[in-house]
Structure formats: C-alpha cells, structure tokens
C-alpha cells in the first residue's frame, strides 16, 4: 500500500482548448470521473484569441498518462494535448510566501531570499513577502529554509510549462494518443 511504485511519476500536460464557458468544468469533470490524481491545473489565455492553455500535472504511470491524453482528446472543445514529460521542457511554478521577519532576523531572511534568487515584493514591520519562480524543487527548498522564521501565508500557482524546442504548436493535433509507441517494446 505504501510501497513506492517505480512506474508512477509526474506527468506534465499542456492542453489547448477553446476558450468557452464550461470547458474547464469538462476537463475537471474528466479527472474526477476517471479518478486521475491531479496535482495542479493552471489555466490562462494565449496569444490566440478564443484559445486557452492549461498546464495539468498528474501523478501516474505511463499507461494512465496515455489514457488521460486520449480522454482529453475526446472532449470536443480540446484542440491539442501534449505530454511534456519526456520532452525537453521548462516547467515553472510561482509562489508568494509571507514570512515573519522582524528587524532582528530581516537581514538573514533577505540573504536566504537572495541565495534562492527570489524577490522581496513587500516589506512590513513584522513580515515580508517573497516571490519566487522556479521548479517545484527549488520552491520547496526555499519554503524549508524559511519555515523556521515562521511562514504566515503561502500561495502557489501550480506548474506552467513549455517545450524548449522552437517549433510552434501544430494547429492540427497529430493524435499521438491514437498510436501506440510504448507497447512496441
């Protein structure tokens, strides 16, 4: 039960969908219905009017990920699905951390912030707000270092991701979901 399944890992999907009422509901409903374990989901507009972009992180094995991809394609409003897990990609999370920092420890906190290349975006007499962008690990690292000072409030956006290649997203999905690469082995 508690054993670590080596086949399970984080899968990062980028989903382009029509920007219409109810589309997010359809995506969320799909995860609930198929019992996919969702770690984060972010949504935003894109440079294309009428198209929104989601970054979805799930935990599961490769078969689960492929099924999820195929099920996402079944949603009529979903235009394109890309699994970035095995591709060179930039994955970033943003966090705002309000940490207790009175005059005595403020210098230490600022130093830690600096080491992590985070930015202080607000300073008050008792506390300051740190903004950090980076991988999940990096953010987790900063949180652990700041914890002893007292974290008053924390918010994270969830991952956003993009492939490193210069290729544009195909305007017609090539439906890798329909093919079957991994079973060839």
């Amino acid at each position: 039960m508690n054993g670590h399944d080596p086949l399970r890992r984080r899968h990062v999907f980028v989903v382009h969908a029509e920007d219409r009422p109810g589309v997010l509901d359809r995506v969320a409903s799909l995860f609930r219905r198929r019992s996919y374990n969702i770690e984060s989901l972010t949504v935003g507009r894109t440079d294309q009017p009428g198209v929104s972009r989601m970054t979805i992180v799930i935990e599961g094995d490769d078969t689960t990920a492929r099924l999820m991809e195929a099920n996402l394609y079944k949603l009529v409003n979903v235009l394109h699905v890309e699994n970035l897990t095995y591709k060179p990609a930039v994955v970033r999370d943003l966090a705002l951390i309000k940490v207790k920092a009175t005059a005595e420890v403020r210098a230490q906190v600022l130093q830690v912030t600096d080491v992590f290349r985070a930015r202080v975006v607000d300073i008050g007499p008792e506390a300051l707000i740190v903004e950090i962008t980076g991988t999940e690990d990096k953010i987790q690292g900063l949180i652990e270092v700041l914890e002893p000072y007292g974290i008053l409030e924390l918010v994270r956006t969830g991952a956003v991701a993009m492939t490193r290649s210069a290729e544009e997203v195909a305007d017609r999905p090539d439906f890798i979901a329909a093919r079957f690469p991994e079973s060839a082995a």
Partner: protein
Amino acid sequence: MKLSGAQIIWEVVSREGVDTIFGYPGGAILPAYDALLDYPIHHVLVRHEQGAAHMADGYARASGNVGVCVATSGPGATNLVTGLANAHMDSSPVVAITGQVATPLIGKDAFQETDVTGVTLPVTKHNYLVTRTEDIVPTLREAFYIARSGRPGPVLVDITKDAQTGQAEFEWSDEPVSLPGYRPDLRPVSEEFRRAADLINAAERPLILAGHGVIMSAATSQVVELAEKASVPTSLTLLGLGGFPPRHPLCLGMMGMHGEAWVNTAIQRADLLIALGMRFDDRVTGNLSTYAPTAKKIHCEIDPAELNKNVRVDVGLVGDLRATLETLLPLLAKSERTDWLRYIDGLKGDSAVRDIQKLPDDGHLYTAHVINDVCRATGGQAVVATDVGQHQMWAAQYYKHESPRTLITSGGLGTMGFALPAAMGAKFARKDAEVWVIAGDGGFQMTAAELSTCAQENLNINIAIINNGYLGMVRQWQEFFYDRRYSATPIHSPDFVKLAEAHGLRGLRVESRADVEESFEAARNHEGTVVIDYRVEQEDSVYPMVPSGNDLDKMIRRPQSNPIYETADD
C-alpha cells in the same frame, strides 16, 4: 428568410432526416411544440421522459440513424438522464433537445430551472446551452454530427425559451461541419497493420472477440471474411450479437459472465485475441489478472481511450472497424488451423442443443422454452428488445439473431425498464419489422406506463413478460452468494392481462409450455400491442455463470447431470 428559433429547430431536425421524435411538452419548450405542428415530423407523446430517451435510443439502434428526444426544462430534462446515460454507455447516437428557462432567469433558481448541461455532462458525448436564436442552426448541426460520427453517443442541446421565441435569418448549408478539436476520422498507420497481420499469421490459437462496433460500423461481412480466411473462431459480446451469423460454423456464441462455457475456456487457452469494436468490459473479462494469460491481443477500436484501459494490448488499430478490416484483410495469409478448430469443437460438444432439453419435465414453464420458441417462430429475424436481468441473458443465449440491429438491449448501463420504450422506438424506425419485447416482471413495471403510449400510437408490438415473481437476477445472486436470503427480491405484480386490457390492448397468460406456441399465433395475428404474461419457473437460474471477479473459466454450472457442460473441459 426570417424564422423563429422554434421553427429553426424543426427545420434542422427534418433536414437531418428525422421523421419521428419522442418527447413530452412543458413550459420552457412550449414555443418549439407550437412550431412543431407545422412540420411533417411525427411526435410520440411518451408517459415519462425516460421513455422518450429510451425510444430515441431504440430508434437509433434499430435504424443506425440519430434518434431524437425532446423534454422541457427542470424535471423534464432530469428525467432524461437515465436514458442518456444508457445511450452513452452503449454508444448510441441520440440528440436530446431540452427547453431551458429564458436567458435572464438562468442562475436565478427560476421555476423548473436546472443546470441541465451540468447534470448531463458526464453522461453525454457532448452538450450545449444555446441562448441565442442565431446559434441554433450551427449548434444542432454539430449535435447531429457529433452524435453519429466517430464513436457515436448522445448529445444534449439545451435551448432557452427566449432563443426559441427570437427571430433569426435561416440559412441552410450542406457544408460539412468543422470542429477543430473533434477528430472522429482516425486511421491506423501502415506499420501497425503489418504488425497485426504478422501476429494473426503467426498465431496457432487465435480467437475473434466481436462487439457492438461490428454492428455500428456495418462490418459483418468483413468480420466473416477475416474469420473464414484465417480460420478464426468468433465469439460475440452481448452487444455484438447479430453482428456475426449465428449458424456460421466459426460462430461460437456469446462470451463472458453468462457466455458459453466453451467460449470462455477458449479465451483462456487462446494465443491471440483479435478484439473488434469491443471494450473488455468486466462482465466479459472476469478477473483481469488471469484473463487470457497466454494470448497476445490486437484491439481494433474507434475510440483511442479504450486501448489499454482494461486489458493491456499488443497492437492497437484505431479507426472505423470496417475500413480497418478492409486494409488488414489482404495482408492475411489463408490458414487452416485444424488442430485449434478441432480442440474448440471438442469443447463445444453438442452445444447447439444446450440444456433446454435437460430441463425437468415437470410441466413447469421455463424461460428458455419461451425464448427458444420465440426464436423458432420468428426465424431469428424479429427485432428483440430486452430489459436487464435473467431474461436478458437467456434471450442472449437462446435467441439466435440472424442480422445486425435486431437485438436491442441495455448492455453497459444495465437499465431496467429499457425494453418496452426501446422496442417502441425500434418499431417506429422499422415499421415493417416484427418487434418483440422480452422483459422481466420487475423491469417491465418500471416503464409500464408506456403501454398507454402504445395504445395511443396504435403500435403493433408483442410483449413477452417473463414473470417469475422475483427480481430474478438479484435473487440468483442472493441464492449463490448470500445464502438464499431473499432480501427485497420477491415482487408482486398487477394482473398483466387486465393491465393490458385496461389500456385497450390484448392480454394473454401462459402457464405451460404446451400453450406457448398458441400464444405466438394469437400475438402475431393481432393488429396492435399484445402483452403475454409467461408464468415461468420461479427459482430458475442462468447458467453457466462466472461469479463477478472470478477467473473466466471458473464457471458455476447447472447442478444436474448434463453432457454439455461435462464436455466443456471440466
């Protein structure tokens, strides 16, 4: 030409080739019903909206065309939900049109307001809320297109009352519908065909598992050609029955929980399964971890999300089944596979007789008698709609469907109450066909109100109620797995003969096998709906049975000496 939204609805529906719709009026759909009087579309007034959805489903399955049901907002629409879920699970093309409260009232908890697109989201292939008159044409066209293309399914279009009363320019175009995110036209790549063909050519003990996709893709002759060319015995899922000629020497019959023992045994011994338009439902596989342990698997399926969902497969061919098989067939070598066919024949023994002749000669009427006799009397040519439970499994075992789209049954959802309305829908789709309902006494009572619709429509169908005084399948599970503690399964029924007569229909009662044939004569010679109350043996069970989650070849057999089961690799 300016038309009202209500008129536009019927302009589109009639252009989509729909001649009959099933529905129930109400406040939010009143404008559409008012306009309906001016269109040559026959409206069947149901007695409950669930019946409308099932009728549209039955209409769709019998004809292959989209079935249409109509309901008002709120309770009208929520009553459709079971029918939509049923159509969704069995991939039946249905378009549901529902009225919605006027746009300014949405979100205000107005009278008869329900978030219908929200409620039906998980049980439809897609759904829409239309608030503007000018959106009705494109939305309804998309709805019909989505419902019938790819893996078919139900699509709901919720139209606000003000969109129905508003005016818009009506223009019709025959341009194909273009949806950027919807790709129903997937095709496998050639390398996958090669791999599939290599597996088939190399197999020694292959088996075809043919499902609903064979029927929906009209691929029967391609499947027969595959079976004959490569000498592959063919088994069918419940929804695949009718997709392969039952008297063909390579036809083994149904697989799964109540499938033929020799089929399940053959699946467990096979070295290759060729799955055609089926989805490895748990009622078909039994215990997944021991399912077909020695077999490689080829899965031909239109829905990519079905591949590797339940059973890990070696080659997946995604696309329309008939097109897939047409490409695959030339790649196959002609084979004999004499040993494998002889082995299966050995399993099969005198299977064609089954255990019907072994039933005790105690003067009691058994369901197997009734269904076997219906099959003989109709030559396997009737359209048979069944409900869910024991009678459904017996019908699957004993009614030999000679052609596709003649078995209409609730496979995935297992919806009691489906048979009567589905048969009615099928009758409207195929007016010349002989249509039979086979239902249990329990399920029949769930939608028996539609008898009144039969009378109003002067519908000519025959209804066989398999009346054993129990919710039979649940009783059977209680007998096998709950120590015969019959909790809530004995069921009282009205006098079905009088019930039929109260509706102005013909009613008959049959209590012995000797009278079965006579009841057919009476039913088939009567113009109109006939209800026949068959009083069958009360505690009969369906055999063989793979208990839920068991290994597929560990079946419970009829507890009496029976040469058929003994030959099936005991």
